[in-house]
Each structure stands twice: as structure tokens, then as C-alpha cells.
């Protein structure tokens, strides 16, 4: 039984949202706040 077109549309939209959410998590987890050590050395 073929699913209706709106199911496919929402499925693709949900998949795209999941990809974006995972991407945002990866990008934000790669960023770190300035550490005490770096601040003491006068890093910007």
C-alpha cells in the first residue's frame, strides 16, 4: 500500500530536521569556551 503524498513530504521534512539538528549539535560541540589556561595567556 503506497503511503499518501503528505506522508512522504512530512517524512522528508522530518529527516531534514534530524540532519540539521545533528549538524548543529556537532558544530556547537566542537566549539569550546575560553579556558582558564588560555585566558591567563592573554588569548583573545
Amino acid at each position, binding site marked *: 500500500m503506497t503511503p*499518501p503524498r*503528505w*506522508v512522504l513530504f*512530512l517524512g522528508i521534512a*522530518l529527516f531534514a530536521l534530524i540532519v540539521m*539538528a545533528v549538524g*548543529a*549539535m556537532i*558544530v*556547537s560541540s566542537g566549539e569550546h569556551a575560553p579556558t582558564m589556561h588560555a585566558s591567563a595567556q592573554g588569548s583573545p
Partner: protein
Amino acid sequence: MTMPPRLRKLALTLHVAVSVGWIGAVAAFLALALTRDAYPAMAAITQYVIVPLAVASLVTGLVQAVGTPWGLLRHYWVVVKLAFTAVATLVLLVQVGPITAVAHGSGGQAARLSLALHACGGLLVLVTSLVLSVFKPRGRLTRGPAREQAAPAPLPPP
């Protein structure tokens, strides 16, 4: 395994209350995310309001599906709603850590932007689920004893 009418209405009321409350709480979270210096409040809202409402919405939704003729795997709109709610709850639980970290002062600009983007995505998913609940679009996975789609009655023979 259908619930009696009174219990069914009580369960539906609870499901609507926690689900709409979840949308409102995420909207408040988004407003705080766009306001600087409100990160501790965001963590408190997440921990004490959004997560309990999300779990309650998922549980009451499952009870509604199983305890009514709609079923869990009979109609596409129910399955899609379940998928949306499950994914939103999962992403929320993963985000609790980063939200707490930002509230404690760690995490940079990208982490804060990520929280706002996640709140936007969450709102989109939740509002879509709300629309599905109201419009209940056609489409069935299986045939069963559940209420039939509104099919036109056959014409009487001439």
C-alpha cells in the same frame, strides 16, 4: 482494548493539556534563548517543565492510540505524529546537557545559537503534530475494526 467514554475523555483532556503546554513551554524557551542573560531560566524550564511535558505527551499519546479505535499503527497521521513526538523527545533529552552547560557559563556563541535553532525546529515539529491531530488526514496502513474513513455511501439502485 478501548477505554470507556469517560476515561477516554479524561485521557484526551490530559493529552491535549500536556501537548499544548509543551508547545507553550518551548515558545517561552525560544523567547529566553533570544534574550541574553536568561540561560539559568532556560535550564530550569527545560528540566522542570519541558522534559516532563514531553514525556507526558508521549505517554498520554500512546495511551490514547492504544485505548481508542484509532489504534497505534492503523492511520498514517497517528504514526507520523508518534514519529514526530518520539524524535522531538529524543532530541530534547540529548539537548538537556548542552542547555545545562550554557546555563553554567560554558559553551560559546555557536552553542547558544544551536539552542535557539533547536527550539525553532521543535516548535515546527510540535505545531505540525497539532495540525495533524486537528485535521486527521486520510490514509490507512491496515484495515481493522477502527472507524472507517468517511467514504461516500453507495448510491441506491435505480
